[in-house]
């Protein structure tokens, strides 16, 4: 039997050595990990705006950065719909008051807007991007980059079949009010008058899609006054 002093000294030595190695690895790798996270978010913004990875050209960190820099700019608006000039998405300090919009431009012509969306599903908070056509009322795409919903059920939100349903749907009703996009139970009846703001639901994922309906509307509300302003400018 070893003495207590030995036991305590031994455990302390072991923990110190192990902690040293772990923190060494953590600080050596943290820069690369943070870069990965940033690029992953950019990748999602790009995907929501109809860029896609091809088999010939896999998206490396550099390629994602390049595409992003060539097509995407960011602007910041406040809840009253004012554009905060000169500010970019990276400079936002208070996400409750200032909201980023990523703008896709091809040859200086706006091709779409992408906004961050997030909210509770069944088990977890989902994070993603929702993109909009230049008319400011038609959905262009939706992506999710982080969630912990059940694979095969709520996890289907990250699948192409679900996401591609959103394209072309309108989140503004004919009288010009924000209505959001609802994922319903079952398949959308395309002949229905409500079909313009409905997408096919995911069977077995009622709670996840309910959550999505709610937080998509909530996030769109934040931007509504700005979007509305742009819509009116378009009419004029």
């Amino acid at each position, binding site marked *: *039997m*070893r003495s207590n002093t030995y*036991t305590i000294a031994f*455990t302390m030595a*072991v923990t110190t050595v192990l902690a040293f190695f*772990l923190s060494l690895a*953590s600080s050596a*790798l943290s820069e*690369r990990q943070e870069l*990965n996270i940033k690029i992953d978010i950019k990748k999602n913004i790009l995907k929501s705006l109809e860029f896609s990875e091809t088999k010939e050209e896999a998206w490396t960190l550099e390629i994602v950065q390049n595409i992003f820099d060539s097509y995407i700019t960011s602007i910041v608006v406040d809840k009253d719909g004012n554009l905060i000039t000169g500010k970019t998405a990276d400079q936002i300090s208070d996400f409750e008051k200032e909201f980023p919009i990523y703008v896709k431009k091809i040859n200086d012509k706006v091709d779409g807007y992408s906004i961050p969306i997030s909210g509770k599903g069944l088990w977890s908070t989902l994070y993603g991007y929702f993109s909009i056509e230049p008319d400011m009322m038609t959905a262009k795409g939706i992506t999710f980059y982080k969630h912990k919903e059940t694979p095969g059920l709520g996890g289907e939100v990250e699948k192409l079949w679900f996401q591609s349903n959103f394209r072309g749907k309108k989140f503004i009703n004919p009288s010009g009010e924000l209505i959001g996009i609802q994922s319903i139970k079952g398949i959308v009846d395309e002949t229905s008058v409500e079909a313009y703001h409905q997408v096919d639901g995911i069977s077995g994922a009622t709670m996840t899609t309910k959550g999505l309906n709610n937080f998509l509307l909530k996030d769109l509300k934040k931007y509504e006054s700005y979007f509305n302003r742009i819509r009116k400018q378009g009419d004029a």
Partner: protein
Amino acid sequence: MGFLNKKSKAALNDPLMNNNPITLQVLGICSALAVTVKLDTAVVMTVAVIAVLSISNTVIALLRNLIPSKVRIIVQLSVIASLVGLTDQVLQAYMYEMSKQMTVFVSLIVTNCIVMGRAEAFAMQNGPWRSFLDGLGNALGYGMILIGVAFFRELLGFGSIYGFQVIPDTFYTAGYENMGLMVLSPGAFIILGLIVWAHRIAAKIEED
């Protein structure tokens, strides 16, 4: 000690066939179910477990005469947890997409019974070289089953092998459908059960 004398060879080979940790000892099932939907995650998991298990066994074997028996389990666990933490960090830095797909299951290697089991049952009584081989053998035995399960799940569930589609499109147009069950956990149970059965017959193991 020779490079691979009889005992060392047994330490490496036994867990592959006669004493496979998954099919015969039924350890490490949790992760075997979780990361076997597709081959690529199963392969990464295998590599991670090989790294953790062979290094943890070696380290524990080196320390075995110094570790006070009162605190041996917690010391083993700290070594294992640190190695897993390290693996997780490396994956996040160099294989970000993969680490996202594998989520918590990398960290859960800590609780993989195989890893602690080998530290306590083997590395505490044997030298570092043989413990290293034992760790390697067990990790390979584990990985072999993992990759086997993933092979069938991906083939039947997605019609692909390692991401390459192998079921031709003409099959799908003729009415063939991927088996959705294979993508969900029950699919893993069924495949694993069949593999355990086949393995026990092949290894001529009978229980009363």
